[in-house]
């Protein structure tokens, strides 16, 4: 392997509640993510995939285990280091876009830079590149309420990328989009991944969307359950999609049918 390991997840567990009310959402998951990888995480509702993503995003703390990004243990981050990590090292793409609806698209995209002491003027060049790439130049001065869902999510994607993060985390980014807009977004994200070798981790339960990934982890009941790797050179998206659908179907039928 010539690529570096950018993210190492080491036997993380996550419990909610205590005593009799304890629920274990993650039961000791370990995996590595290589630099430039487009990793998908799939699983049924309640399988723990969003909890896993939120642990990586430092939105929740794992009960045990370590998460290392660029060989730094992010579980130990606090205060300023935590805020820095969130803004600089990771970009987050939400299912519901989470644009601030009282800021224009331009102001929304610039926000992560502003939060880390840069001005809008300094980020102008990068903003223009991203706006061109995501085809949102025409809406830069508009407020979210004046945009379509697709435009909103592309603005959110530009916001996630403006700080040039080491890793982009996406939680069901197409969940609130129609199929056409979902396709446009995935094409754009995939292009970013290919051209800039950006590392992306995406949670989804849509096999179509997942087929853009280079590797997919399947989670069931808080455990890593299966892994699919796409052969980039030989395998088309359609073929990969077929394979994903098969696993998803087997997942639905229980572990007895798989492998």
């Amino acid at each position, binding site marked *: 392997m010539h690529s570096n390991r950018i993210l190492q997840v080491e036997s993380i567990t996550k419990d909610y509640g205590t005593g009799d009310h304890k629920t274990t959402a993650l039961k000791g998951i370990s995996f590595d993510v290589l630099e430039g990888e487009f990793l998908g995480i799939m699983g049924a509702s309640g399988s723990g995939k969003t909890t896993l993503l939120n642990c990586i995003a430092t939105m929740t703390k794992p009960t045990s285990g370590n998460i290392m990004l660029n060989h730094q243990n992010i579980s130990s981050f606090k205060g300023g280091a935590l805020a820095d990590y969130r803004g600089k090292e990771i970009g987050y793409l939400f299912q519901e876009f989470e644009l601030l609806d*009282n*800021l224009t698209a331009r102001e929304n995209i610039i926000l992560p830079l502003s939060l880390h002491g840069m001005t809008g003027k300094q980020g102008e060049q990068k903003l223009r590149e991203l706006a061109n790439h995501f085809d949102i130049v025409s809406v830069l001065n508009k407020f979210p309420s004046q945009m379509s869902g697709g435009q909103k999510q592309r603005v959110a994607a530009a916001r996630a990328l403006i700080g040039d993060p080491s890793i982009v985390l996406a939680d069901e980014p197409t969940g609130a989009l129609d199929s056409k807009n979902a396709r446009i977004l995935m094409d754009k994200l995939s292009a970013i991944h290919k051209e800039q070798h950006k590392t992306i981790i995406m949670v989804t339960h849509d096999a179509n969307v997942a087929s853009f990934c280079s590797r997919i982890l399947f989670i069931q009941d808080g455990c890593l359950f299966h892994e699919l790797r796409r052969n980039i050179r030989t395998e088309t998206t359609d073929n990969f999609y077929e394979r994903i659908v098969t696993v998803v179907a087997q997942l639905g039928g229980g572990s007895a049918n798989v492998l």
Partner: protein
Amino acid sequence: MFFKQIRRNASKSRKDNGLLFGSLIIAIVAFYTLLSLESQDVMRFLKTIESGAVSKLMLIIPLVYVISLFFVFFLVYFAYRYQMDNRKKEFGLYLMMGMKQSRLFAMLMGETIWNSVVSILIGLPIALLLTEGISLTTAQLVGIGIIGHRISLSIPALLGTVIGFIIVQIAAMMFLCFQFGRKELMQLMQTDSPDKQFIATKKGWISFILGLLFLITAYGIGILMLKSFDLRVVTLIFVFGGAGTFLLYRGMGSFLGRQIRKKGPSQSGLFTFTGRQIQENILHQHKELAIASLLLLMALSCISFGIGIASGRGAENTRSVDFSIEGSEQDISAFLNSTENDALIAASYPMFLDQLDTDTHTFSWGLDAALSAQPKTDLRDTIIKNFDQQSEYPYIISQTSYNNLLQSINKESIQLKERQIALYTSFRNSLDFVDTLSGAISAGAYVKIDNKSYELLPSLYDENIVADRKITLYSAMIVSDEDYRNWAKNSSEPFSWNVLLSKDSVQKNGLMQEIQSMENCLKAAGLSYESYISGIGRNLFYTVAASYLTIYLGVLFMLIANTVIGLKFLMYQRTNKRRYLTLLTLGAGIDDLCSSSQKQIRLFFTLVVGVASCSAFFAIWSMFTSFLKLPAGMGIHRVILLAGIGFFLFLFIQLIYINIVERASRREILALNITDRR
């Protein structure tokens, strides 16, 4: 179980809405203070001397109370609507689980009544203590003394406060229950999306500029035209001022938007976010802001008016005579010389005052030339006209009488030389009149009696020559005793006998007590008299009535305005909680968010307080240059000092509110801490 839930919910809503709960307690205190006015020492005292006026005031008080209940109703309605909006989903769930609407209604009513009872239990003891304090202090200040103090607990006021407060609470809740009862279950279960931002348009700018122009017009009309106190002028001021304020707030969003667009790109941190938050807040809540700003303006104007009247009246009377007694010389001398009264009396003398006998003497004023040399004003022309008309029956005062008066109050006597006369007026409170007249006589004026010219002394004399209002003199002449005997219609009988009470006994027992005991003696002797106390009574009555009511209304308006602004902000922050969460995910620190919200709160309050203060400045200016004349002896620096202290206090109260809102907002942001919350 049901009651336990009611108690739990009620205590939670008190905790969540400390600001409203606190304001309601203050409202209770204010209500009781107003309603118990009748049982205050000062009012009980005034009743004995000005019973007619006091009973008229007591008729107005219920009306003022109803008006204030009406305002408080809106505050309560508005605050409860906000609370219910927050709990909409909870109500939806109760109904989904099969709770009957009537039971839900009973639960909400139960909570309201429970909260009202808690507020009353906290508010009333504070109110009782406060009114007791006010009663004692004012009594002490005006010298009724502690002897006359009675506990001012008033059962009717207590009942009035409790009933009024509970009715307002229940009425507001019933209105809301009715509104919510008509909503579909699905509407209750949905969470409201925050208001959508819309781009500032040209309309906003037009509004903003028009608002500014209207306000400037209102200020101008106030200062230049309010003097005439024409109803049309007042209406114009209200229309322009009100419309201007509304338009200004309506367009303010556009103005802020422009600033953000201009400055935003070169700023880092949460500058743009903070600006946009305020802009959005103003865009969506411009009506409430305008109302709050107008309420604050009313509060400032009412309080200034009240303080103006109170301090003005206080300075009006300088005490020169305590009693003016009428009767035969024999009776009066007998009374004054009796040993039991001796200790009470410091000075007594006859006041010789009469009309000049124009049947046997010719008389004319020689003031026209000197008055005409004064700056031309309407007043000057009126004075000239009045003096012309008054040459028919001019009044004269004997020099010794007036000197007796001056001596009794330790002032220098008048020394009249031959062919000299001093000018007197009892209109000392009309500053402009006194100024013009003093200017004229110091420039050299004279009178002609029997074709002989008499020089007027260059200073004007204005001590009150009777105890109260037995006589008021536009003008009179203080003449030598010899001249008095020659010119007066009846020079042998004094106008009245003046008595000044002994300083020692006044200091020992208080002026009021002493006057009252002297009055009893006079009544017993069957003499008719007037006393300084009636003047004090009248003044006190105006002071208490006008200042008490206006300050009460002012405080209430301020309370409502601040609570509305504070609640509006917190409501807005709560509806936009997600934004703060997003910012945390994007890497903003908790401290950044708190400081942004702090800036928002400060700017939000400043925008309301700023416009209100600016308008209040012009309103107070207009008031003091028109119907609220500055009393004599009150220098402009004293007014500025008073206004300064008043405004400082106002700002201090605003700071307290800002601090309360900041704490509440900070608490909410800290509770958002992203880790393990999403």
